[in-house]
């Protein structure tokens, strides 16, 4: 199946030109560079969304309107409820400082009424509804709000961006395939006399196609490796030159080991795609002649 990979020196001489000659490997290098960078961005976004999502999965807030006086009752109800892992009343100063960022100095004035706010972490598997019922019973009117609900629009946006990134990767792959088809046709046209002679002396389409698919495979592998290497350097630079650029604002890994393996496989997958596309394009073109 992979006989075409091995070529005798005589077979190699049949098509003129050498490594990284002509535009094809450079086009593939640029395509692969963009593909790896976009894929890395997509994977980072997906991982970041996962980290954020997991971080707030069991986190809730209890809001008690005008309730500085009623907050202790809510806090006590929470501490006594089974399945509550942590309870942390948010200090008013902290809330006013946050408000000040949005509303300016007016937000920090004491005459602006604020609700009492208590952050709650539940143990995994605990029903938030049961806790909400207990809080409501202890402090009527208290609101039990999931952080995930608050962050849902942001997570949705991140997921959308992730899919956009993967769609771009797919489109670049298709564009690369189209470029390979053009390159294969161009190579066929440039080597038409050689092909005619080969057919004339009894070469099969497969023998001819193997020459071109091997050439495209080498160009793709060289170009793809160069593009991926350049992308890797750029990503390392973006990450501040750290070898393990796994820290991020979300506090989790942006790219896992498997992600890095997947990114490293992109040039190989690109080569396989280019080779397959080149073979199909060449065989189709050859069928047009007797």
């Amino acid at each position: 199946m992979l006989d075409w990979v091995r070529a005798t020196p005589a077979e190699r001489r049949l098509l003129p030109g050498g490594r990284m000659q002509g535009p094809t490997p450079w086009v593939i290098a640029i395509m692969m560079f963009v593909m790896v960078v976009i894929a890395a961005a997509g994977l980072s976004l997906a991982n970041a969304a996962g980290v954020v999502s997991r971080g707030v999965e069991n986190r809730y807030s209890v809001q008690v309107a005008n309730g500085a006086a009623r907050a202790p009752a809510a806090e006590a109800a929470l501490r006594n409820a089974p399945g509550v892992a942590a309870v942390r009343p948010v200090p008013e100063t902290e809330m006013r400082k946050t408000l000040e960022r949005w509303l300016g100095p007016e937000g920090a004035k004491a005459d602006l009424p604020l609700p009492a706010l208590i952050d709650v972490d539940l143990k995994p598997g605990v029903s938030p509804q049961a806790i909400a019922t207990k809080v409501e019973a202890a402090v009527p009117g208290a609101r039990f709000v999931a952080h995930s609900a608050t962050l849902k629009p942001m997570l949705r946006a991140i997921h959308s961006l992730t899919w956009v990134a993967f769609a771009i990767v797919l489109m670049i792959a298709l564009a690369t395939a189209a470029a390979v088809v053009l390159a294969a046709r161009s190579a066929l046209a440039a080597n038409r006399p050689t092909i005619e002679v080969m057919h004339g002396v009894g070469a099969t389409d497969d023998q001819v196609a193997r020459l071109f698919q091997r050439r495209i495979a080498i160009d793709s592998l060289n170009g793809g490796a160069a593009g991926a290497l350049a992308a890797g350097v750029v990503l390392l630079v973006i990450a501040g030159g750290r070898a393990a650029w796994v820290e991020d604002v979300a506090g989790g890994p942006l790219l896992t080991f498997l992600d890095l393996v997947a990114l490293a496989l992109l040039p190989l997958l690109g080569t396989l795609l280019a080779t397959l596309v080149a073979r199909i394009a060449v065989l189709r073109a050859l069928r047009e002649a007797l």
Partner: protein
Amino acid sequence: MGKLATIVEFDRVGLRYGTGAEVLRDLDFRLAAGGFYFLTGPSGAGKTSLLKLLYLAQRPTRGRIQLFGDELTDAPREALPPYRRRIGIVFQDFRLIRHLSAFDNVALPLRIAGKPEAEVESSVREMLAWVGLADRASARPPTLSGGEQQRVAIARAVIARPELLVADEPTGNVDAEMAKRILHLLTALNRLGTTIIVATHDISLITATPGAQMIRLDNGAMVDPTGSLKNPPAQMGRADA
């Protein structure tokens, strides 16, 4: 493989390119295996088109063609390479691969056929020596003279000992001495059993080939031979040896 009585059979063959007029009309003949045939006729008579049909570079638009005893008129294209390997071709314009050495050009049919490199090496060296180009083995066609290119083309055509050799003006670019040598080579091949078909305008070539027969084309059709050739052909439509 048993010896065939008839190696080529054309049955009311016609050929037109696209929607143009027929360039070959009602060709109806048989060529005996082991025969030596000259294809003559004025320029534009259809000689090259007939050769294209013979070396399977073109399908007829009507009629039937049999080669080596097999009906190939409508044969699928993937069935043709084994037949092409049994045919040697000398193109009028040589069609050497410019970026390959003379050695590699001559070796091409053997390599395509999957012959071991040791056999390729010895056969090609021997053939290049025979056509007087032993010292030009590594030269590329653009550095060769017209005559040298012609000889490389002939060496490539005969290297695989084809059963049928089709040559389009094989002596058109060589001097008289080399033309004699080429004719000698073709005759020697013919004696070994190869059927030879040579398209030529060179009457001296025809008269110097005892036993050869002639197919004359004019305006795309076979015509009775004219002139006082030493070896008159068989009846039109039956050029048997």
